[in-house]
């Protein structure tokens, strides 16, 4: 017998496959009209990496959003809100703007080196937020702290920009616009793997995650080792958010809004049930948003990725705030 959750999972798997196929089949050129070699290159080096990046980034950011909302017991937490994405940007900015010589001339640096520095930047900010979370008990105060960290990081990036060469500055600006189309096949394949690993971790720690939603003290009495749990969550969120940011640039709203979309479509609340839904919903939203960016049905170019995601995510966040206010 297929349960309601399984129905959702199958539906989302189907939707992910359909959207992926649309991406792979349709683009700005008709592959059937091209020589085999060119068609093969376009398929393997342009379309497939883009699908893998969108799926990996969407799924990964959605999971990090869920983990952070659970950790802070705050439905408005997410990698972009608490400055985690900004931390990743800071890592990339230091590598590209301050250390321009090390990054080569024609590119920002190798995909893996960018991933590493972005992950370090994200982890650094996460540790800061973690320390702050011990002092600030109010979730709102913590969010404001996260925003301030984000502003501070942005200010540091601006200072780095003012000292940077025009080449590295422009490279950073292009990267900062956000896109799923930046990565090569090898680099793009890393993101879905990271997303799956994050989900494996989530499934392994589902009892801790569930217990944590009841409050830190109750979670401890239920056998959750608080320090270990927090450390692991910092590492998982830092690596996934950092890797996604390094490849795609700063991506807004996916992490914050996707868990809420899942709450709208499913009544399941345990992490065992919601983890696959969040992962697949994140992948679907990212793929759908990227369809609007690419607009293969139109002669004209589509919309910037972060604009599409903001149009989708901002109303959801407003709805969440509205609901919370009414519940109070």
């Amino acid at each position, binding site marked *: 017998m297929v349960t309601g959750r399984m129905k959702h999972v199958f539906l989302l798997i189907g939707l992910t496959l359909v959207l992926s196929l649309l991406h792979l089949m349709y683009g700005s050129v008709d592959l059937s009209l091209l020589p085999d070699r060119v068609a093969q290159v376009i398929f393997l080096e342009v379309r497939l990496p883009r699908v893998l990046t969108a799926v990996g980034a969407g799924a990964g950011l959605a999971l990090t959003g869920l983990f952070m909302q659970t950790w802070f017991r705050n439905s408005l937490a997410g990698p972009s809100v608490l400055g985690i994405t900004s931390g990743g940007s800071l890592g990339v900015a230091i590598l590209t703007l301050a250390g321009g010589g090390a990054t080569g001339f024609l590119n920002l640096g190798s995909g893996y080196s960018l991933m590493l520095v972005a992950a370090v930047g994200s982890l650094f900010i996460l540790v800061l937020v973690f320390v702050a979370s011990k002092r600030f008990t109010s979730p709102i105060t913590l969010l404001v702290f996260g925003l301030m960290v984000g502003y501070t990081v942005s200010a540091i990036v601006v200072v780095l920009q003012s000292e940077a060469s025009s080449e590295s500055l422009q490279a950073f600006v292009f990267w900062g616009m956000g896109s799923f*189309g930046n990565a090569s096949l090898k680099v793009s394949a890393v993101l879905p793997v990271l997303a799956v690993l994050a989900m494996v971790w989530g499934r392994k720690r589902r009892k801790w995650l569930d217990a944590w939603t009841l409050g830190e003290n109750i979670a401890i009495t239920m056998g959750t080792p608080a320090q270990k749990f927090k450390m692991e969550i910092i590492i998982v969120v830092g690596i996934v958010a950092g890797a996604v940011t390094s490849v795609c640039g700063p991506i807004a709203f996916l992490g914050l809004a996707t868990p809420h979309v899942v709450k709208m479509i499913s009544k399941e609340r345990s992490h065992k049930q919601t983890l696959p839904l969040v992962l697949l919903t994140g992948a679907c939203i990212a793929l759908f948003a990227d369809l609007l960016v690419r607009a293969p049905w139109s002669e004209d170019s589509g919309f910037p990725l972060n604009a599409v995601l903001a149009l989708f995510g901002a109303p959801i966040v407003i709805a969440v705030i509205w609901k919370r206010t009414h519940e109070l």
Partner: protein
Amino acid sequence: MTFENNLLNPLSTNCFLLILLFSLSVTSCKEDEVHTSQVEYLKPSYAQGYRLGMVKDCEWLECIHPSTQKTLVRVVRDSSAFDILSNMFVDGVAHIVISEKKKLATLSTTHVALINQGAGLEYWSGGAFISYLQNEEALQMIDNSKASDLGGVPEFDKEKCLAINPSAVLIYPYGDPLNNLELGIPVVPILEYLESTPLGRTEWMCAIGWMVGEHAKAKLAFSLISKEYEHLKSLIAQTNSARPVVFTGSVREGKWSAPGGGSLVARFIEDAGGEYLFRDGGGLENLTLDLESVIVSAENADLWGLVIFAPDGYSIAKMVLDDQRHSYLIPESRKVFYCNTAEVDYFGDLIVSPERVLGDLIALIRPDVVLEKRLEEKSFKWLQEE
């Protein structure tokens, strides 16, 4: 058997000859190897960002960062030259093979103008940021599908670029649209924007002409441009009258933003017989100055020059409407000259026609200099009151 007898033996003689031939061939192979000391460089007359390297029959283009003098890439037009360069240079610089007589794709609309002026648009297969393109012929090629629109906003269209399969994509170094993906399309950084002289910038058309096998044609076209430019410059050198002080820029976010003392605009003003107010400030980059100090220093200026984008036209009244503080900066003579990039192809056709820009500027800045041709007003002209 004596030694002499042995030498006379036909079999031994043949063996000896074979060994001799083999030794000679080995020696000649070694002589075929080329060394960096044998390389001759053909440097352009004005541009600092490229040079042509030559050794024996092998020729290549080197793109060099004008400020650091670091070689960024070497471009060759056949794989045998690639092999020679790979053996000769072990400095880690990328060697790029492009196909001669094939079309080029562009990232910038300036590159389209350089191709057009140097080799001809028949060597252009498509470009990005077409919405900024003003060249009518190039736009018609897009409309007739003779060239492809490669996007740019929000993203460069990699699929179309691969489909048209250009010989190379001309890029700005910071904007590699292919992100070094393994797509098999070479990317060549074009550094014309880093040149500090108008003719240096224009001379890049010869580098692009070389890429498509039209170097001689491009050089001829450039020599006509440079000759005319130098002639106009010499007219200024022949006069002894005072150089009017010219300042440029406008208020942006409460600060004064103007081209630096080493910029193209600064050089144009100096070549046109003016004295650039901010000549000692900055290099190629824009200057951001304190508004108060600009108001003070502009007191002694004679002319104000502007490069603006105003699709609905521009006037002194509109300039003051944009920012009231502009009114304090208008020279007593109320002489403000401007170039409206919405009306003229400042970043395209004018980059490859510096002599036209200089002619217009001389007519505005130095009316005492008699020009053979009347003012074309193709680039800069006086800003009207209303």
